[in-house]
């Protein structure tokens, strides 16, 4: 796994860019630990100041420093995306592996259900979820709801990998070497499954952060915890753009876009790397 990372960093421009962008945003989020102001406090600085040397990203109409506010927002947004991604991985890995290894009727049934979850439009369901919960809506609940709805596409990808692995000849060789199923899965197959898991994790983080931002901007979440979406929500509530307080919107949008592109680059470059053909070429298989 370490050599994989080293190779990717060294030879894939996309991965390097992705790592730099994501790392930059993560470092920015880490600054929230040394923030001089608690995130919920209002009117700690003069309101509506444009970016300047004392307030790099300006201040909001609620008297908050955009820079420090944004460190919290980015941190919460990233943590949220990460929790959804990790939670939904539990489902998609379990379903994907089970379906792919079992095959036959189990596979067909699971994939029918799986395709259903891919097709169903989730946004109206999430809105309904908020509608029912209203004030009781919290970040953990939303993360749970999104994780239990957003696993299907990744499960399909993981299943495809598991399916092809289970029918490879070397898997039979392992069986007849006396290896147990658990060992085969974790020792022999894991190196093939991990990259696809990493790829889907990055993609899923993008997806969940995107939905979170959207729901927050509409006010369909817990609007007291600062996230990127919630910041834009409050800016809209104060008609920041009409009032000319553009920095309140500009910096959150800019940073979240950088995060999206960073995660996306990480995902696609990994995906290209795990292409078996490129892998074999690297290992020095002679062609022709």
């Amino acid at each position, binding site marked *: 796994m370490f050599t994989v990372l080293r190779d990717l960093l060294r030879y894939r421009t996309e991965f390097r860019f992705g790592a730099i962008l994501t790392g930059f945003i993560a470092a920015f989020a880490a600054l929230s630990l040394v923030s001089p102001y608690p995130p919920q406090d209002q009117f700690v600085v003069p309101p509506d100041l444009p970016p300047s040397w004392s307030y790099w990203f300006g201040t909001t109409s609620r008297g908050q420093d955009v820079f420090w506010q944004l460190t919290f927002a980015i941190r919460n947004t990233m943590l949220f995306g990460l929790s959804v991604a990790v939670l939904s991985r539990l489902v998609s890995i379990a379903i994907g592996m089970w379906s792919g290894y079992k095959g036959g009727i189990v596979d067909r049934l699971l994939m029918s259900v799986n395709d259903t979850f891919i097709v169903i439009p989730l946004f109206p369901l999430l809105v309904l979820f908020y*509608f*029912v919960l209203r004030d009781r809506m919290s970040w953990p609940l939303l993360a749970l709801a999104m994780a239990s709805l957003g696993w299907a596409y990744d499960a399909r990808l993981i299943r495809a990998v598991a399916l092809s692995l289970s029918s490879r000849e070397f898997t039979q060789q392992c069986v007849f070497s006396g290896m147990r199923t658990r060992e085969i899965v974790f020792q022999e197959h894991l190196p093939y499954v991990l990259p696809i898991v990493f790829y889907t994790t990055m993609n899923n983080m993008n997806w969940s952060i995107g939905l979170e931002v959207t729901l927050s901007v509409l006010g369909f979440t817990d609007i007291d915890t600062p996230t990127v979406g919630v910041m834009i929500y409050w800016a809209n509530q104060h008609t920041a753009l009409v009032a000319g307080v553009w920095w309140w919107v500009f910096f959150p949008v800019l940073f979240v876009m950088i995060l999206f592109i960073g995660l996306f680059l990480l995902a696609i470059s990994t995906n290209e790397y795990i292409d078996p053909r490129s892998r074999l070429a690297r290992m020095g298989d002679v062609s022709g």
Partner: protein
Amino acid sequence: MQAYAIYALKRLAQFVLVVFIGINLAYLISHATPIDPVEQTVSAATSFGNASPEAILMMRASLRELYGLEGGAVSQYAAFWRRVLVGDFGPSLSAFPTPVSTLIGRALPWTVGLLSVSTCLAFALGNLLGGLAGYFRESRILKLAGIAAMAVHPIPYYIVAFVLLIVFGYLWPVLPISGGYRINTPWGWNAEFVLSVVTHAILPVASLVLVGVGGWFMGMRSLVSNIVSEDYVVYAELAGVSRGRILGAYVMRNALAPQVTGLAMSLGSIFNGAIITEQVFGYPGIGTLLIQAVHAGDYSLVIGIASVSIVAVSVAVLIIDLLYPLLDPRVKVA
């Protein structure tokens, strides 16, 4: 023909499953909460102050019925399904006494129009450019197009729409940024009205296309770069078949089938995008209606829209699935 019938039956079964699971999810979400939904809804709806006392009484009564709180679990569930199957979600609470179905019926054509135009545009544009980029790998312009598509693609619909709104609404206000047509324009097939519909659709369509194009572009490009080394393409090249014919009838034609499968798979998320985009531009479709309904605490409308969305997307997927064998002759024997 018989093989096609079997294929169609399978797709139909999948359609039924999608609707079944989708509606059950909606039921589960709306019923499996510890909160008393009636009082919650009533207080939410009245807090906006747009309901008359008469409407509040009616609301309580119809809410009891809507939630089916009188009956047991089974009859609640049955009542829920009956409403979905008949398409009768009762009167809207915020626009009392207009039926929910009328409101949805009024909004749906806008959404369908927006969605079909932008999806077709994004699909056609993305696949065409992606196909060219995969085939002519050395082209600089196509490489740049690829980078641009990759940069916009991962950004969520809301942000892209929002940026367009800022650019064309505040920085360079040349296009209408709200509504589906110019207010006070008489409805009908006159040039003025049609033109206003078109100009109002430009920004919402543009934001959907901007996000959508990247996915198709990248999907097509990677499919094509695999297909160009398939035996049948190599063979046609050896035969001196013209490049245009190879790209069209051999490479793109074969890449189209998986892309259409991808289209069916991603309709759900495209629909999500349309809902959000509508809200940004105040487009009079399902999405704007849904968000208004939430703010107005209109339970029956929210349930109605969620259910109709599930059914509508499933129908669209079914249509694509049923047409798919036209594209791939191998399906029939499978």
